[in-house]
């Protein structure tokens, strides 16, 4: 299942933590080498505080600036685990829907979607393999009946290589394979259970960054593609284009001072603004000990 914004935030936090982790020299061979060459210097330690933006509110606007709806995010005390995502319509006082997350050993194990009247609409349950990789997930309806499930396979590097979709009875319905190149994921091939290709997505990179994502039909013909435009390290816009190259729509991104996504604006083919979304954050301070030499 596709990761939506709530997972995006978790990923964001993980990505930043990974970056913060890299700042500790002793943790890597490169760090050890540096330690050896710095033998004449005195090792000292300092606390590095990393400011991590944590999304707390997302507001959707119509093209005329009128607020359509907003989403609030609630985290645990450590501001690391997303506990609840509640969607509000400006014309109603109660949440239109509420998504509650469950965790075990720091990993998400389930999310339950509630209707505005508090009734369960659906539930998604996740399970992991011994390495902590997402092995399977299943979607249940309001009555707790399994509606579909997914199973994943990974290579030795922990990269997803296969996604299998199963129906309520456990019969496979689709199989997706992932192929990796030097830059990362390079192709996604989708097949039905008879092995017939139903579509392919090819990913191209430029300077290590995703540059183009092309969608091909079962006959191998290009159907559409997405072009990624960057400003420095940050994605500044995503263009959706038809097979003939004509623009179908565009999303432009604005960022805050810490590089956090602040606004996403959607435009149609004529360049007219269709809608926009604003993002608000609180900042979490993660502390870590860093060794340095003087």
């Amino acid at each position: 299942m596709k990761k939506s914004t709530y997972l995006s935030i978790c990923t964001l936090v993980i990505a930043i933590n990974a970056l913060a982790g890299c700042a500790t020299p002793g943790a890597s061979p490169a760090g050890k080498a540096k330690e050896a060459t710095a033998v004449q210097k005195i090792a000292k330690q300092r606390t590095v505080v990393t400011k991590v933006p944590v999304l707390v509110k997302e507001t959707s606007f119509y093209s005329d600036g009128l607020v359509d709806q907003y989403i609030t995010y609630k985290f645990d005390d450590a501001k690391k685990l997303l506990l609840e995502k509640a969607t509000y319509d400006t014309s109603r006082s109660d949440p239109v829907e509420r998504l509650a997350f469950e965790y075990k050993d720091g990993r998400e194990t389930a999310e339950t979607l509630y209707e505005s009247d508090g009734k369960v609409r659906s539930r998604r349950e996740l399970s992991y393999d011994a390495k902590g990789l997402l092995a399977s997930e299943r979607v249940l309806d309001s009555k707790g009946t399994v509606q579909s499930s997914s199973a994943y396979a990974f290579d030795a590097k922990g990269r997803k290589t296969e996604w299998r979709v199963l129906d309520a009875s456990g019969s496979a319905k689709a199989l997706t394979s992932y192929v990796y190149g030097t830059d990362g994921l390079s192709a996604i091939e989708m097949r039905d259970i008879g092995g017939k290709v139903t579509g392919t997505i090819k990913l191209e990179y430029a300077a290590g960054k995703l540059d183009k994502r092309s969608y091909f039909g079962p006959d191998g013909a290009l159907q559409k593609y997405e072009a990624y435009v960057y400003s420095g390290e940050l994605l500044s816009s995503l263009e959706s284009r038809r097979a003939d190259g004509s623009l179908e729509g565009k999303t432009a991104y604005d960022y805050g001072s810490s590089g956090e996504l602040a606004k996403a604006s959607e435009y149609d083919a004529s360049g007219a603004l269709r809608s926009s979304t604003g993002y608000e954050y609180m900042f979490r301070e993660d502390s870590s000990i860093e060794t340095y030499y003087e």
Partner: protein
Amino acid sequence: MKRIASIVLVLALGVVFGFADETTEIYKILYQQAEGLPQKYAAALNLVGLNDKSTAPVLASALDELIATQKNYQAGVDQELYAQTVRLLCQALGDYKYEASASSLWTVAQDVADPLAEAEAIMALGKIRDLDYAERIALKLRDLNFQPTADRDAGEKVAYGCIVALDKLKDSRGFSPVFFAADAWYSQRVRQQAAQSLPNIADDPTDAIKAILGSESPDRQLRALMAETASKAKSDRKIEAAILALNLGHLKVPHDKSEAKTLSDLRKLALRSFIAYKATGADPVDGCSSSYANGLDDEERLFALAALGVNGSDPAASALRDILLKLNEDQQAGVTDETRNRMAKAAIDAASSSKNKLVKPALVAISIDEKWSGGVIAAAQVALKAMQ
């Protein structure tokens, strides 16, 4: 030693931004291949769970197909699953503001015999903000307002959907039905939603409010004028409604004390509007004079004097002058009491704030009449001085 690092994020593309990806493509295909309602529902659940706008065309054609095959799903279990699937699709199409699905959504609102699906389709039309449907939704709510539906719960759900949709559509045609929904037969939840949505529907609801003032009971007239004062309408429009309300508030003969009190409250609110929005000119004057002469209580009469003072026009100043002269005449005739003293002071204050020389002879008459208390005379003298 402490170092603060602010990290510039390298965002993981496709994850942070929620782009269309293979999951979208797979679930689109699975929906298209789904046979039978349970499979369609399962596929819809996955497809909608993606929160991906690019799925909207597939969802719309799925909805069309379900509409066309509705008669195939008449059995109890099928009917429930059918309605659930339709609801899922309608909500997503509304969330994605997929304009091309508007006519299908309206068809659901008309033809699908499930109140929650009907309400969801109507709310989706509201989210899309397709004004072509504003009148139709307004009429649907108007009809529902008249009397409880055979299945009350069903009627409430649809009414709720209409109110929320009209709130989103922000079209003045939605004002009256939502206004009446706020005191219709519905449960408190629906009525509260109507009251909450009412101010959002039209920036200037004056025309709708004037129509309500002209034809409704005093309770509703009062509520309508309250809605007008709370609206974003311009001051001159609010004054326009207040003039009508005040005049109608005088015309109506109350059936009992309770109605008399409501009518007085209506007039007081109109008078307070004149003061707040500085109503000038001749139009408000007759109503103000009537409130002074026939007001239910002193408060109404005092508001009337203040409104005449703020007005400042020649007709308003003439009315104030006549009031002051009559008070003075009564005083000379020995008709005196505390209330008259209070009215005289208020009328003098109003005359002073009118800054209109027409009131001067009346102020002079009071200032030299020793039958008045020292306080009243002093007030008249101060007012005269201020006008020089």
